């Protein structure tokens, strides 16, 4: 499996993801945002961070960078694309994923461990998880409040395009366990073909039982098959 991680000025989770991918024997390349050639990739990861200091809107400037043209082409050809946190924001700004990530409802930057429930495991990113499995992951964002049109929200629910929803440690999905105000507790979404995943929680921070838990690792091992 060949993977590419796109690096912007202000990315800060790129090396964490590289550590995971290399540990799992992906052939990984770090790709600078000014590059115009994307190495042949089975997986493209757009990492978290604060690309361009979140100027204008989170992800708005990064979405217009050279390499994103190549990412859009590869994504449209079916390449797997994973956007985590700022990466999710960038994917919505490019239009590869619909909707937008607004400021957290309580206006606070949230950096903490949360729980998400696997709502749909029938896809290449989550098939190593069990349906309804509860994962402990970490969030670190100021704009994670997912918003979209009511028609699109219905489409996401009807077509099983929501892999994760925020919940408590017992798996209860409700407003009380919604950290940022996202519609329907959405923590991540797919495009219609399910080859592009955007998610606010950071699976790459939960890949080692010795450090913080390893609930995130199966997202990457799922992609190996």
């Amino acid at each position: 499996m060949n993977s590419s991680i796109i690096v912007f000025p202000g990315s800060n989770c790129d090396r964490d993801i590289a550590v995971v991918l290399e540990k799992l024997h992906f052939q990984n390349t770090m790709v600078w945002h000014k590059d115009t050639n994307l190495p042949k990739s089975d997986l493209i990861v757009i990492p978290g961070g604060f690309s361009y200091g979140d100027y204008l809107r989170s992800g708005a400037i990064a979405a217009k960078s050279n390499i994103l043209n190549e990412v859009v082409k590869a994504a449209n050809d079916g390449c797997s694309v994973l956007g985590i946190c700022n990466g999710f924001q960038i994917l919505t700004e490019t239009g590869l994923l619909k909707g937008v990530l607004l400021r957290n409802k309580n206006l606070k930057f949230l950096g903490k461990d949360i729980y998400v429930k696997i709502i749909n495991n029938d896809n290449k990113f989550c098939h190593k998880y069990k349906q309804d499995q509860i994962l402990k992951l970490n969030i670190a964002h100021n704009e994670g409040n997912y918003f979209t049109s009511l028609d699109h929200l219905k489409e996401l629910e009807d077509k099983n395009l929501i892999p994760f929803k925020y919940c408590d440690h017992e798996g209860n999905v409700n407003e009380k366990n919604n950290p940022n105000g996202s519609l329907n507790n959405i923590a991540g979404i797919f495009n219609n073909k399910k080859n592009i995943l955007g998610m606010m929680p950071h699976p790459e921070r939960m890949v080692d039982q010795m450090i913080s838990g390893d609930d995130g690792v199966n997202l990457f091992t799922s992609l190996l098959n």
Partner: protein
Amino acid sequence: MKFSIKVRLKKDVLDPQGKVVQQTLQNMGMDTLKSLRQGKYFEIEINENDESEAHVKVEAMCKKLLVNLIVEDFEITKI
């Protein structure tokens, strides 16, 4: 030629920042304040002599980068 652009959140979109600013002003005693929404403002200077042509270009800038049309509206004014 100069233009100003006002960007505001669409009516149905929650504006938590605006709400906090509103509450703060009300706490400061501005008790006749009814509502407040926060937005963005840009001033753009463009090398173009034809006003309608310039307007088209500024509108393209709004749609392609400055404004997220899912949640924001914009208004262009010549200044």
